């Protein structure tokens, strides 16, 4: 059983779950089915009717499976995990499960710190899993629950609480480059948030943004050959009937074969839209003319921070001239919508850095008026930074609720009138920050909040701070504590393969405002990931 702890429309768009579904069903003796989290009204009806959570494929009770795997994308889905376990009739805590209950296995990026969910899972898988799925399935052939957990604990990358000694090294799928992407995905018949064919062109990113957990977690960079990408795109368009294909990665403009792949796909399928999830500002002017030819609509650029000093501190490195050039290229290219993405609450941020966001918005607004003559829409999305485990900022303090609210107001007051600004809900960030670096015992907060009614915490209209605050008060926990985090309990479980000295050096460089070059362009940054069969694979 495979689950993503959110509604179907979100979960079906998750490429990770599509990979697991495809590999398990095509390459192992297992039969994988899926279940997503029912929306609260449906959950209420199910409880009232005594219905248990069922699978989408066979409509059998989820609790009847041998193994229930959850992809855990971020902290604000944790209460949904408990909701799904409860709806399925599976005891919440692993210690309470018996022979008839499935083994509950967690994976995905949020297992960078498994503590807040540890007692609810029988095991966690740390890292990329394609190459270990057969071994996991084989472990399930052991007789009985205890023997199965024992066999699972022997699979590299698996952490079984109480059985695994020491930390578990993050697994890297070293055959990524030579393996085709998912070619027969599940095609949703309901509109999904990302409703298009997906070709994962590259895994990993070494741009080195110091706030970015994914950039650290998925190292090293591995690129798929262009032939593999183009063939997959063609086949996926045939198989799915989609009219758009996304060349997916953490930074697709950095994919060495991006020009060739785009050119060939467009030549083969002239009417098809080819999308790239993100454009880098430092090369946007060049990229827009190459990638976005014939495409219209809106585009998102992410300067992340409002001043050069802060951008350098987070290793974003984009300068004012590059930003202006990118904005001008956006409007010159015929795009009528520009969205700028920023974060507030970054380590070392000052009020002037926040005011700098408004200054950049004013610059962009001026260019929009000048070049698009009133036809352009300019908007800003401003989220609150939450420090994450296994990044250079893993010990840095969270900015805190009061500071974030004050800076949001500062930005509202300074913002030009013609720019639409949306802010991430500070209260949700406070909860996210509490869980992102949670230690042993943080599971009690998750369970109490769920029992108090917290569900779908990533959805603004569903998020209930009162449920979390009540849970925190009951446990004597401070939500969104802005004190520095001195210990790192996640390191007792997870070894990401990143050298601690690298993270320390990066933090020191951040404080000095020094940039670190992308290792694909320059010297090795000694992050420690490469070696022992794990290497960067960039197209020649």
């Amino acid at each position, binding site marked *: 059983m495979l689950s993503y702890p959110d509604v179907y429309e979100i979960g079906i768009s998750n490429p990770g779950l599509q990979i697991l579904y495809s590999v398990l069903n095509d390459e192992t003796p297992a039969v994988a089915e899926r279940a997503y989290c029912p929306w609260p009204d449906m959950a209420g009806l199910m409880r009232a009717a005594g219905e248990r959570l069922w699978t989408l494929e066979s409509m059998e009770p989820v609790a009847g499976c041998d193994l229930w795997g959850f992809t855990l994308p971020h902290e604000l889905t944790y209460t949904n995990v408990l909701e799904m376990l409860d709806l399925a009739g599976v005891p919440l805590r692993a210690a309470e499960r018996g022979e008839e209950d499935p083994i509950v296995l967690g994976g995905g990026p949020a297992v960078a710190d498994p503590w807040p969910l540890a007692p609810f899972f029988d095991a966690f898988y740390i890292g990329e899993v394609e190459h270990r799925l057969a071994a996991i399935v084989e472990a399930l052939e052991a007789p009985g629950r205890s023997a199965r957990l024992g066999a699972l604990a022997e699979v590299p990358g698996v952490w079984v609480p109480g059985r695994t000694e020491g930390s578990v090294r993050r697994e890297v799928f070293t055959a990524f480059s030579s393996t085709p992407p998912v070619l027969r995905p599940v*095609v949703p*018949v*309901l*509109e999904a948030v990302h409703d298009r064919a997906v070709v994962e062109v590259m895994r990993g990113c070494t741009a080195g943004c110091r706030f970015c957990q994914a950039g650290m977690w998925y190292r090293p960079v591995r690129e798929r050959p262009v032939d593999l990408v183009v063939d997959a795109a063609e086949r996926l*368009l*045939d*198989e*799915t*009937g*989609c*009219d758009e294909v996304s060349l997916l990665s953490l930074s697709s403009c950095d994919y060495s074969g991006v020009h060739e792949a785009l050119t060939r796909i467009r030549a083969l399928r002239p*009417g098809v839209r080819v999308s790239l999830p993100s454009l880098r500002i430092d090369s946007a002017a060049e990229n827009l003319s190459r990638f976005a030819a014939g495409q*219209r*609509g809106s585009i998102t650029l992410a300067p992340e921070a409002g001043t050069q000093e802060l951008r350098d501190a987070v290793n974003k490195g984009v300068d004012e001239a590059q930003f202006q050039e990118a904005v001008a290229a956006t409007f010159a290219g015929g795009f009528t919508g520009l969205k700028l993405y920023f974060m507030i609450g970054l380590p070392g941020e000052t009020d002037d850095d926040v005011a700098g966001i408004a200054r950049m918005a004013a610059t962009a607004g001026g260019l929009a008026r000048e070049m698009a003559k009133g036809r352009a829409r300019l908007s800003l999305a401003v989220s609150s930074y939450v420090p994450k485990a296994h990044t250079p900022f893993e010990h840095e303090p969270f900015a805190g609720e009061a500071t974030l609210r004050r800076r949001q107001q500062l930005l509202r007051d300074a913002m030009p009138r013609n720019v639409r600004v949306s802010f991430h809900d500070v209260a949700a960030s406070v909860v996210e920050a509490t869980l992102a670096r949670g230690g042993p015992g943080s599971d009690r907060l998750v369970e109490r909040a769920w029992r108090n009614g917290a569900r779908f915490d990533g959805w603004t209209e569903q998020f209930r701070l009162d449920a979390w605050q009540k849970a925190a008060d009951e446990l004597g926990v401070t939500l969104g504590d802005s004190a520095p985090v001195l210990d790192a309990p996640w390191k007792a479980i997870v070894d990401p393969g990143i050298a601690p000295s690298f993270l320390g050096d990066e933090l020191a460089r951040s404080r000095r405002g020094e940039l670190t070059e992308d290792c694909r362009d320059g010297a090795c940054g000694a992050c420690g990931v490469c070696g022992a069969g794990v290497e960067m694979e960039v197209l020649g």
Partner: protein
Amino acid sequence: MTWWLLSFARRGPARYLSHLDTSRAVQRTFARAGVPIALSQGMRPKPRISLPLPLPVGAAGLEELAVIEVPDEVPGSAATLRALRAAAPPGLEPLAVVVVGDQHPRPQAREVEYTCRIESDAGALRAAVERYGSEGSVVRERVSPKGRRRLDLKDYVAGAATVAVAGGTEVRFTISYGAEGAARPQEFIDQIAEWAGVEPVMYGLERRHIAWQGLPSGRGPGDGRSVSS
């Protein structure tokens, strides 16, 4: 370019699709079958496809209609229909293709036959339906974001009857369309349930047949150059 009418059934798991999702499912069925759909002009070309009578979420439709424009060279053949059937998702079943020609058909529903089940004592249900037949006027109020509107169900709903089927009693009725639209199946069932003293919950709503107007002469589904097998 050539206009086609596609007759199709939506049932099973597909009955839970919304109108837009049904349209998208038909569109992707064509793409998977290798049958191109013409695109509109302009900055953001859209496939030229429309479903003239939306089907409520949860309802099955045995004889739905899609109006689709395709390039002239695409054959409306039995082989094309077979390809569409093979490419359709579970519950969506292409039934027939009618090649209309270069005139854009704009069909409008005239009469629609529905059936559904209601959990109720068969006698109470039959009495409620018979009462509906004997009333001269049955006025309901429709509340929507646009305001309140009173409509007489008798102007729209006729042919109401109950039929004993395996597992219960089925209600059959026909809704006529006028210049001001039509009554909704739920509005009729609300009234029947009220008289029968039960919850107004429809089970297994099915749209069995639609009589169309505005189709080119002799070119309705099942007529003209229809390919149905």
